[in-house]
């Protein structure tokens, strides 16, 4: 909701439009730019199984105004669908589920366009360039892994973010495949984490202002003293401290505490501005160095090896890296937290910070322009000045997600965890981790892949899930648990280690209990879990589309028995 603060609108012209009123509560989160990104999106849901989670996800995206959605679903509405899917009605019975859900979802928002594809997935996927119209793909299990692999390859080639979703009984999971470099500038950190006052590295204009405000501090009137902005107090007492400490600022926790209690606090026992100064000591007296995550992003290969078509993020990252190397600090964000002060003084202080932020951003922009020339960037790809300013403002909190391909079970092949094997093993040993549920879902997929019913079978589409009939309940349970136990052993072997007793048996027991729970549901969805998972996925879709906030990296599991979620990097 960063509003342009340079000009005041004349009264009455700022009254919100009908659309702004409808979307008011969300625009306060992702702003007009986020909303535009949402409206430019065309999402396709490849809906298999009961398909409730997919439809619930769409509900949460149609309401805030996603541009278009398509549901690919060749199934016919059954009695069981009516009991669990809210976007079907009694009159939907016997009709195409895709048509009916699209129709009822579109009622939620007249601005959104919905489309239904009733072609069987097998033939749909065999066409060329089939995903070109879409900007995001959702796929729900159960699905033939061979088809899922093809979807994944399409998605990878076109760099389309793809979600693969399970929702079975009390359990759910989703994995996100996004491009290998997915940078985010607007991460929306907690407001308290963004104060950056540079009291250890004041520039002349700031130091002058502080000197001016604190001259004669010991003799000024109580009223005047109680209105010195706390930034100026910190700068003043830092000078005093430095004079007593060979010109050095407080560095250790002990020194900072001493600075707070023996210097700042001694200035006044109870004035509000001195309280604010004391409270700010520990977090403000830090050198303005970037954290290791940010430094790693600024020096990643995409930033150092620029091409004429590098995404703007990486050009700006390169320029900011140069700024950082030159000044040993990031560009100043320029915001000043509220603090006790006379109005005029506070505005002056704000202007001092803003002017410095503009100056820093201008320096970065100059470098960006140089880089555009030196990399031979086409003029139509010229980077917007606003984007540079935005990056400079949020530079301390940028984030990079390294997207990875979905892990897909291939019948007859061992599941490989590759460079993640050791981390996954640690997850397996951590009782808090839901990796056991992840393995159970992998086993569930393998069961689906190896238990295809004949396509001729009545109502069968070649897919069979564990526990789908009462007759085979026990046998399915044993099979699923058997596959899951083998996955546990394969993981331990791939990580090149072993797990001692009794831990090993405990892991096997927990995995077996989860498998029993999965078989119990027989591939059915519980509406609550579908709705909850649809909410989580919609949040993630919004984060991926708007490139705001930080998406899950890369698999999220939800356990509805224990009522908790867990994120794994697979």
């Amino acid at each position: 909701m960063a509003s342009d603060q340079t000009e005041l609108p004349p009264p009455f012209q700022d009254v919100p439009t009908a659309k702004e009123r409808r979307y008011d509560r969300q625009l306060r989160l992702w702003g007009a730019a986020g909303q535009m990104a949402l409206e430019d999106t065309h999402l396709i849901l490849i809906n298999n199984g009961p398909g409730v989670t997919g439809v619930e996800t769409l509900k949460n995206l149609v309401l805030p105004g996603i541009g278009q959605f398509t549901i690919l679903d060749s199934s016919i509405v059954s009695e069981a669908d009516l009991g669990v899917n809210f976007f079907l009605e009694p009159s939907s019975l016997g009709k195409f589920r895709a048509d009916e859900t699209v129709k009822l979802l579109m009622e939620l928002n007249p601005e959104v366009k919905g489309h239904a594809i009733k072609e069987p997935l097998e033939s749909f996927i065999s066409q060329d360039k089939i995903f070109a119209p879409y900007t995001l793909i959702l796929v729900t299990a159960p699905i033939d892994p061979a088809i899922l692999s093809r979807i994944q390859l399409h998605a990878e080639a076109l760099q389309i973010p793809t979600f693969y979703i399970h929702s079975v009984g009390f359990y759910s999971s989703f994995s996100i495949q996004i491009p290998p470099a997915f940078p985010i500038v607007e991460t929306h950190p907690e407001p308290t984490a963004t104060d950056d006052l540079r009291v250890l590295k004041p520039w002349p204009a700031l130091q002058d202002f502080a000197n001016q405000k604190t001259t004669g501090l010991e003799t000024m009137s109580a009223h005047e003293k109680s209105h010195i902005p706390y930034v100026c107090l910190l700068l003043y007492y830092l000078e005093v401290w430095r004079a007593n400490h060979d010109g050095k600022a407080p560095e250790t926790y002990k020194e900072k505490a001493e600075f707070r209690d023996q210097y700042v606090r001694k200035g006044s026992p109870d004035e509000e501005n001195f309280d604010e100064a004391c409270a700010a000591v520990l977090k403000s007296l830090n050198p303005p160095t970037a954290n290791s995550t940010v430094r790693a992003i600024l020096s990643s290969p995409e930033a150092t090896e620029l091409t004429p078509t590098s995404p703007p993020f990486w050009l700006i990252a390169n320029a900011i890296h140069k700024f950082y190397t030159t000044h040993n600090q990031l560009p100043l964000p320029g915001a000043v937290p509220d603090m006790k002060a006379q109005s005029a003084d506070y505005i002056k202080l704000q202007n001092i910070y803003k002017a410095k932020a503009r100056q820093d951003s201008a320096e970065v922009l100059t470098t960006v322009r140089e880089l555009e020339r030196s990399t031979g960037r086409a003029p139509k790809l010229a980077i917007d000045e606003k984007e540079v300013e935005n990056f400079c403002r949020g530079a301390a909190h940028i984030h990079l997600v390294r997207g990875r391909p979905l892990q897909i079970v291939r019948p007859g092949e061992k599941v490989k965890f590759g460079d993640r094997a050791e981390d996954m093993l640690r997850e397996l040993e951590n009782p808090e981790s839901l990796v056991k549920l992840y393995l159970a879902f992998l086993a569930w997929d393998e069961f689906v892949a190896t238990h295809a019913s004949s396509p001729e079978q009545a109502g069968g589409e070649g897919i069979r899930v564990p526990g789908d009939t009462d007759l085979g309940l026990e046998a399915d349970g044993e099979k699923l648990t058997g596959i899951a136990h083998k996955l546990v052993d394969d993981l331990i072997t791939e990580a090149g280690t072993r797990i001692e007793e009794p831990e090993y048996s405990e892991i096997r027991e927990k995995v077996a209990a989860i498998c029993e729970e999965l078989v119990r549901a027989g591939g059915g969805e519980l509406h609550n879990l579908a709705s909850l998972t649809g909410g989580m996925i919609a949040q993630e879709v919004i984060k991926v589309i708007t490139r705001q906030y930080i998406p899950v990296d890369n698999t999220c599991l939800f356990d509805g028995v224990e009522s908790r979620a867990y994120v794994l990097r697979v």
Partner: protein
Amino acid sequence: MDRLLSRPGGFTEDEYEPGAIPISNIENFRVLVIGAGGLGCEILKNLALSGFRKIDVIDMDTIDVSNLNRQFLFREKDVGKPKATVAAEFVSRRVPSCKINAYVGKIQDKDEDYYMQFNIIICGLDSIEARRWINATLVGMIDMGNPDSLKPLIDGGTEGFKGQSRVILPTMTSCIECQLDMHAPRAAVPLCTLATIPRQPQHCIEWAHIIKWEEDRKDIPLDTDDPEHITWLYQKALLRAQEFGIQGVTYSLTQGVVKNIIPAIASTNAIIAASCCNEAFKLATSSAPFLGAPGTNNYMQYTGDSGVYTYTFEHEQNPACPVCGNLPRDLTINPDTTLQELVDSFAERPESQLKKPNMRTEEKTLYYSAPESLRMQTEGNLKRKLSELLADGEEMAVSDPAFAIDFRYKVRFS
């Protein structure tokens, strides 16, 4: 769902008998849903599709256009109609086997007999006051000789990408009041800042809202849903901002500050409402362990800003809880403080948040903010120092007519 209830699970108790019993349990379970807004719409849908058949919903609000981005049971044509009725009719139409009664009004209109009919109460509210009221009422209904007087309370709340759901067994586990300090109010801006040294656009808006309206339009009750009123405040705030050189006053910010708007989206409501209903489902069917059994986790916090993070834990009952506990809490205070200062501080203390406190000791009445006759009798005490009114270690009860609660404090002079 019937299939799942007909089979034993990996985590059900050994005594659990799958089949007809859990299914009939859920069909006869009477649920009261408080609030038919963002969470309420989701809760009604979820309950109807989880097999609940006897549902009541209570809400006093009417539908506003800004609800339509998440309250999916409402359409443009419903704007202005009562939420409870429209929501109940919609869900009953989609799920004809589910019967939903709507009541348009305040929860305070209803008495204990009304609440006694239900097996469980699910709250999807945005008001802390209403939550505290229903919590205190349910705790007050507990009759040790009557197990049916125990009404589990499931409560959900959201803000932006975050939310929480919690299950309360009144008097047995931590209640809303025990957990009040988890939701501390934002510190109010001092009046003198608004009046003399505004620095932020919010200060200018609050000035227009609190000071200027009283000065210029005293006789017109402020209606924050009236665009003319918001426009008036916006213009006054804008003029003041220009006078002080402050930037950033907008119509949208004015509305946000004056109405205390909390950002809200469909997806977060879906997560929290479904979590609440999942607990209700488990509780009604015993098909899996539910949150909130004594000595187990009763609270799930959800954070979706940065990845997904949940924190599911046991919030322990507070022995000094003014609603469900019985111990006074210590109040350490400077004896030179005046009673007026103490009265003001109760609005901001995270555990009390009382705006109009009444205060008394066993010996005497210290101050009553209402009724008027008592206020006049006691206002003389406001200027006096606490050392003149109280002894070190003395116990003091603080209440507020808005809530049926007594806070007990033991005064400790510092």
